[in-house]
């Protein structure tokens, strides 16, 4: 993985992480900040091209393919690792830090993988490292949620592996370019990518697990898994018609369920689903503008979603509560968190001057250029819904609204610093979108700051706000949870298994009872003849072994002897 002009950032990160458990206190904190900086440094030095080739099972692995698309994701992953590390500086749990960095390393590995085998290895590594960020919350709920997360991703991994094997078999190569085959290989790989991209109905792992993750872990989780999936979709499935509709449906699904959420991080998690929906739509549209839109939206999304999760995490960290119905009136005590969260909120809602605006409008515009009226309308509804939940409902109920009687202190300095960096980046990208566009593959022929785009966006957002104010008393919420697809495996599956199981057990019992009765009669008969010791009964196991032997032998002999 090392050549003279290439040092794999994952390798740097993994090597650095191995040192982490040896350090303590200040040294560990310094190392945690230095590591992401080192990763950014290696990214800076990376030369375009293919590096780190290895032979494996007669296939050529390319561990480092550096092109613009990979670098976009590399840069933002590196950045969010730095932000997340600063945010987590106060945490004194090495397992979490190690897991977070290894998780980041594997996400980088996926992004730079030039072939599907390397991709698969890092893909699986991502699962087994990230799950610790959920488990280390150390509650029963988080353990169960993490376990469900693990199981679903394990299934996804098997699906991916099956797809890769078929792909290799059909095309004779494992290079990761556009997946250009028909048949099961295409669908299996797509399904695996869609599981990680949280496309409904395969999304429930995300909204089930992320709210139960640790405060600092959720920041990494929100940034990495779904976005690597978006990367693989951009690379492998551009222009797949199905994705346009699934993406648009995702956006609406996410905002609708977010409206129902009472847990602040579950609300944000549903907005990940919704926002990734935009990116998936862009991938499905497949035009140069749409793909640029997806990549840049992934970039901006990582930053503002991390900011939102950090804001919500700071509230949970300081108050120990995560339900909207139990929060309120915090602006007096956590004003900085409030303001920084709001910057994230206006970014995700695509207010002009903030980062979401310059990327989301690109995807919406691409849909318009493609003359897809229904898709366009769906996306606009979703953006109204995004503003409604993340920027109006959540902050209103958390910081304004009724006084909950809580008097927490402001979040610690490192949390605020991390949020500040993220907020500054959101603002910077919103003002100088050219910086982001320069990273994208191909020239970007798009300007978000035209009168028409601006007018439409502002009208939608402000009138959404008006509707919110007028209809405030109808806005859903309350101390409830809402069912989602995860019901299928949390309750439906067990119930089904239980029903089928008890049916099987009953039948089995019946069959066995009758068989045993007959057997008992037979043994009784034999016992009469063989006396009290009942040799047949005693040697039953060996007898059954011999019986099987005889059966197999008889089978083979019959066929063999009477065939000729």
């Amino acid at each position, binding site marked *: 993985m090392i050549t003279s002009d290439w040092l794999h950032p994952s390798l740097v990160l993994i090597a650095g992480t191995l040192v982490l458990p040896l350090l303590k206190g200040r040294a560990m904190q310094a190392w945690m900040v230095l590591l992401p900086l080192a990763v950014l440094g290696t990214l800076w030095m990376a030369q375009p091209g293919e590096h780190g080739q290895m032979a*494996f*099972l007669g296939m050529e692995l390319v561990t480092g393919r550096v092109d613009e698309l990979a670098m976009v994701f590399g840069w933002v992953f590196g950045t969010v690792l730095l932000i997340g590390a600063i945010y987590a500086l106060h945490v004194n749990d090495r397992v979490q830090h190690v897991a977070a960095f290894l998780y980041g390393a594997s996400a980088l590995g996926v992004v730079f993988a030039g072939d599907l*085998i390397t991709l*698969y*290895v890092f893909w*699986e590594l991502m699962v087994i490292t990230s799950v610790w960020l959920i488990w280390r919350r150390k509650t029963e709920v988080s*353990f169960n949620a993490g376990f469900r997360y693990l199981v679903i991703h*394990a*299934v996804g991994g*098997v699906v991916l*592996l*099956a797809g890769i*094997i*078929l792909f290799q*078999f059909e095309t004779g190569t494992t290079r990761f370019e556009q997946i250009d085959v028909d048949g*099961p290989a295409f669908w299996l790989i797509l399904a695996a990518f869609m599981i990680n991209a949280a496309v409904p109905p395969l999304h429930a792992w995300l909204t089930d697990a992320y709210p139960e993750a640790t405060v600092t872990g959720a920041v990494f989780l929100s940034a990495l898994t779904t976005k690597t999936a978006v990367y693989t979709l951009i690379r492998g499935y551009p222009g797949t018609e199905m994705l346009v509709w699934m993406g648009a449906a995702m956006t609406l699904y996410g905002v609708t369920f977010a409206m129902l959420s009472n847990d602040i991080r579950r609300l944000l998690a549903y907005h990940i689903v919704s926002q990734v929906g935009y990116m998936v739509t862009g991938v499905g549209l497949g035009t140069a503008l749409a793909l640029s839109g997806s990549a840049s939206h992934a970039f901006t999304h990582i930053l503002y979603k991390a900011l939102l999760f950090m804001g919500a995490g700071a509230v949970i960290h300081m108050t120990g509560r995560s339900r909207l119905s139990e929060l309120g009136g915090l602006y007096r005590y956590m004003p900085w968190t409030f303001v920084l969260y709001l910057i994230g909120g206006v970014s995700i809602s695509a207010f002009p001057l903030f980062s979401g605006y310059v990327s989301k409008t690109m995807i919406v515009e691409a849909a318009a250029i493609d003359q897809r009226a229904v898709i366009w309308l769906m996306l606009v509804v979703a953006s109204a819904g995004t503003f409604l939940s993340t920027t109006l409902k959540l902050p209103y109920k958390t910081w304004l609204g009724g006084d909950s009687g809580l008097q927490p202190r402001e979040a610690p300095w490192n949390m605020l610093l991390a949020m500040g960096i993220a907020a500054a980046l959101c603002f910077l990208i919103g003002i100088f979108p050219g910086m982001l566009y320069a990273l994208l593959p191909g020239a970007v022929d798009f300007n978000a700051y035209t009168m028409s785009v601006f007018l439409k966006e502002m009208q939608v957002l402000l009138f959404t706000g008006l509707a919110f104010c007028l209809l405030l008393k109808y806005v859903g919420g309350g101390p409830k949870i809402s069912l989602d697809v995860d019901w299928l495996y949390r309750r439906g599956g067990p119930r089904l298994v239980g029903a089928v199981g008890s049916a099987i057990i009953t039948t089995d019992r019946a069959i066995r009872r009758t068989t045993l009765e007959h057997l008992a009669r037979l043994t009784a008969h034999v016992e009469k003849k063989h006396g009290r010791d009942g040799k047949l009964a005693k040697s039953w*196991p*060996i007898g*059954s*072994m*011999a019986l*099987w*032997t005889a*059966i*197999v*032998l008889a*089978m*083979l*002999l019959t*066929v*063999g*002897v009477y*065939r*000729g």
Partner: protein
Amino acid sequence: MTITELMPFSVLVPLIASLVCALLPGRFWPWAVTLVAVIVSAVIAAFTLPAAAQVTLSYAFGNWPPPIGIEYRVDAANAFVALLVAGMAAVALPWAKKSVDKEVPERQGAFYALFLLALSGLLGITLSGDAFNIFVFLEISSLATYGLIAHGSDRRALLASFRYLIMGTVGATFLLIGIGFLYIMTGTLNLADLAERLPEVRDTSTVRAALAFIIVGMGLKLAMLPLHLWLPNAYTYAPSFVTVFLAGTATKVALYVMLRFVFTVFAPDWSFVVLPLSTVLMILGVAGMFAGSWVAMFQPNIKRMLAYSSVAQVGYMVLGVSLVSVIGLSAAFLHLFNHALMKTALFMAVGTVIYQVGSARLKDVRGLGRTMPWTLTAFALAGLSIIGVPLTAGFVSKWYLIQAALDQGQWFLVVLILVTSLMAVIYIWRVIEAAWFQERSIKQPDVGEAPLALLIPTWILVALNFYFGIDTRLTVGGATAAAEALLGGGMTP
């Protein structure tokens, strides 16, 4: 001395050393003599493989030329298996010292003598080119194995050994009957000679019956699905070291004998036509994969769980054989080798737990992840290999198996292989969950990490699992050469 002349000594050295061992008192010397003998044997086997891959080696005992005299005839296939057997013994022995001291405190001379006999028996089976000689060595190794299993500290070990004795004897007798039939028809016992003379007489029911008897006989020793019933108890109640050794070698050698007869002696274009072998083996293999994994998922005893997992892994190998192609056979040989690596590592880890805790039940492993991190991490990593995670040896053999299935357009097999891999995830996970996610109950004694003498060999094997998952030149090369030797009629001069 050339390698051809040295080759028989990989069998003879353990054989002679076993005699010495039987007389040695105490605890150190029997082990030391065994170690030396095993290492010598393994080194010879290691040098034999490259030579045998080039040209078939032949060694006539007493200089009586075959087919009259007894001959050792070694091509890539048996050299590969012999290296596996001797190598596994050499890796397992350093681990054995502590574990055997604890589990078999008395009469260790006899114990190690039996072990050496079993080893030389297994090696003799592999190297011999004479059908009757194969039977003799099979009995030597089997009898020694019964004795070894009976050394288990649990009283049930005696019963397990007795049951294995009966079934093993049935198996060996079936082999003998098969060989007898062949001798009646051809008048020779030399394998290469048999292969030459059989075509004249092979359209008789006697020869067909011989094939059936040999397959069932070896199926028994191999623990192929409906004939596997002896294995779980034998593996569970044997001393840990015996399980470690047997899991890696005994069933593999039986598979080799079956392959040798089916492919070289009878020739696949006949044996797979006369009996519906391909179908039968495929069904039994798949059934073994499922039944083994299924039962393993519910076992409360880890050793027993791994034993059932072995039944499943044998299923993979049989499945590879049933595809009757070079790549399928290569997959079988690869899995034969890789399974030895991972099962030995797993049983070593479990044996280490038994050494410390005195039990391998799941509930006794609770919370051990924190107090014995090295042991259980080794278990988890070797478990990855049995699941078939990329970069482990287990992945390589499953990859080839899947390729072989795809090569014949058998899509459903791929699905079945993946499903059973998921079942492996479940049973390995149960151990991990118990070790790391459950609390140790107050009644259970606190234990610390195991001694290095046990940990180092375990970790060497774990490392080998990963090494052979990445550098596949030796395993894939050896397995392919072995498969080609069997399919290409490597025994005919």
